[in-house]
């Protein structure tokens, strides 16, 4: 009788431990998503601010992209891309930087079932094209 009980406890524990492990992994995944989302947001704002201070439109696109890729260095975001929309690049106009990428959820089974294989992260930041650091082309 005692041996049967102890066997049952082991089975119960195994089931519960598995579920708890899935939850622990899901927590890690949530942390990962939040962390990478912060990184993408930061990359978009840094790109917008760097581009808004550039002297010309091509320089703005270059400065924005450089700044965003620098900010994302070492991150786990895949297929990261940044788009700078400088419009006419006139003084006092608004410039927009859109940063996006994907976070792979392959190592997190429970979260992968809910959110899919890859989680899309995107953020758009705007900045004022600053008069004294930019010139009309």
């Amino acid at each position, binding site marked *: 009788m005692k041996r049967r*009980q102890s066997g*049952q*406890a082991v089975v*119960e*524990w195994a089931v*519960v431990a598995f*579920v*708890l492990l899935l*939850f*622990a992994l*899901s*927590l890690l995944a*949530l*942390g990962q998503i*939040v*962390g990478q*989302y*912060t990184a993408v*947001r*930061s990359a978009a*704002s*840094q790109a917008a*601010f760097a581009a*808004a201070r550039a002297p010309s439109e091509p320089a703005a696109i270059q400065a924005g992209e450089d700044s965003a890729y620098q900010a994302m260095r070492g991150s786990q975001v895949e297929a990261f891309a940044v788009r700078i929309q400088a419009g006419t690049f006139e003084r*006092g106009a*608004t410039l927009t930087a859109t940063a996006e990428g994907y976070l792979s959820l392959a190592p997190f089974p429970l979260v992968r079932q809910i959110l899919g294989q890859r989680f899309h992260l995107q953020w*758009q*930041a*705007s*900045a*004022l094209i*600053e*008069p*004294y*650091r930019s010139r009309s082309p």
Partner: protein
Amino acid sequence: MSGLTRNPQQGQILVLAAILMTFFFIPLAILVVDTGLVESNYAQLNETVQAAAEDGASMLNEGLYRSSNGRTVQLDPVLARQVTDQALRVSRLPGLSPWQIDIHGTTVSVTAKVTVRLFVLGNATLATSESARLAYGQ
């Protein structure tokens, strides 16, 4: 003891697991998500306010500068306020509430608040203050 009597220890692990989930995993998940949201919004608020203060602090009084042959360099307070205000407005930061701009001499200080909608814990209001100074010939 008859064979039909239930063992009081049966299902104990399941109860323990339910308690652990309720009081540990779920609050921890909420904490992870909401702390992350606060952190990312605070970082962005800081970056936006700092950039707006710098934009404002670069507005020198052009008329005075030209009439003095570049000898007098002063901040144009009206233009500085206008540009700082516009920089904050175009930032489109979600939840950014009315801000305060103070100009003293060549320094532009901006205080701003942002209301962040958290995943579970309701709303959080974050505030920051940043300054920038007109720098010339440096």
